[in-house]
């Protein structure tokens, strides 16, 4: 039950975050909004890390630092900047569903790079996602 409540809180927080972005982007550029959100996000998570995993910080050195740098650059400046730029143009309700296909992409990478197996349910899921993306993107915006 706890997991379900935390899961709902996570999904709700992300959605609320998207709405806050849409509001902030009326006054700030995507670059400034991304920067402010990353700084605030870092402090929030770092306080929790210091409280719960203080010893893990000492373990961060050598190659893992390089991996973290790559992960941080791909996920945050690049991913979040594109995320906010798209929210500014198409809106949070249209952009957020499209971000969700990242899960499908990660699994496709797993199949290609890590030889993970493909099954009928996975293919069906990917097709349903594609239908959803087409439904949203083919909408007539001139109405």
């Amino acid at each position: 039950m706890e997991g379900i409540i935390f899961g709902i809180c996570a999904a709700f927080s992300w959605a609320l975050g998207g709405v806050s972005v849409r509001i902030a982007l009326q006054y700030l550029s995507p670059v400034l909004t991304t920067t402010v959100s990353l700084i605030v996000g870092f402090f929030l998570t770092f306080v929790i890390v210091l409280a719960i995993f203080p010893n893990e910080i000492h373990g961060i050195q050598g190659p893992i630092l390089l991996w973290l740098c790559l992960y941080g650059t791909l996920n945050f400046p690049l991913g979040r900047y594109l995320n906010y730029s798209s929210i500014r143009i198409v809106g949070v309700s249209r952009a957020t569903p499209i971000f969700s296909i990242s899960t499908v992409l990660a699994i496709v990478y797993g199949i290609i790079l890590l030889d993970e197996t493909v099954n009928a349910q996975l293919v069906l899921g990917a097709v349903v996602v594609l239908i959803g993306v087409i439904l949203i993107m083919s909408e007539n915006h001139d109405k």
Partner: protein
Amino acid sequence: MINRTSIRKKFTGIWLGYLFALGAAFSYGTSQVVAKNIVETIHPLVAASFGLLFGAITMSIFASKEIKSAPKSIGPYIKASFAGLFSSAGIVFMFLALNTSPLVVVSPILAINPIFAIILSSIFINRLEKITIRLVLGAVCISTGVILVTLSLN
């Protein structure tokens, strides 16, 4: 009379927005593969925190070029802070959920995030966002598809 240039501009703009959204999904998907290597050594929340730090440092370089033209009042920055606060709270809640329940339970709940986004948009920013049946159907399809794909791994 229809202004062709304005329609072309709008069309290009909307498609550019979708292209950015696909680019973001591509970045997130790729970073998940990179994250797989990291979380074998350190806790995912520690990885997310340091990822945010590297991200903030990189973005600060770009942001420094916009400082002169940036708004001087504090209001817009507080609004942007809420964005960071809620996004990171989402990450923390996700790890709490995964710590207390298996992925098969948590994953479908996380996948309904687009539905929440549509509901909250219609409540808080209905003057900025137009919610249509087609959009709701599309979001439901994507959430269902993501649930199917994630559960297929188990």
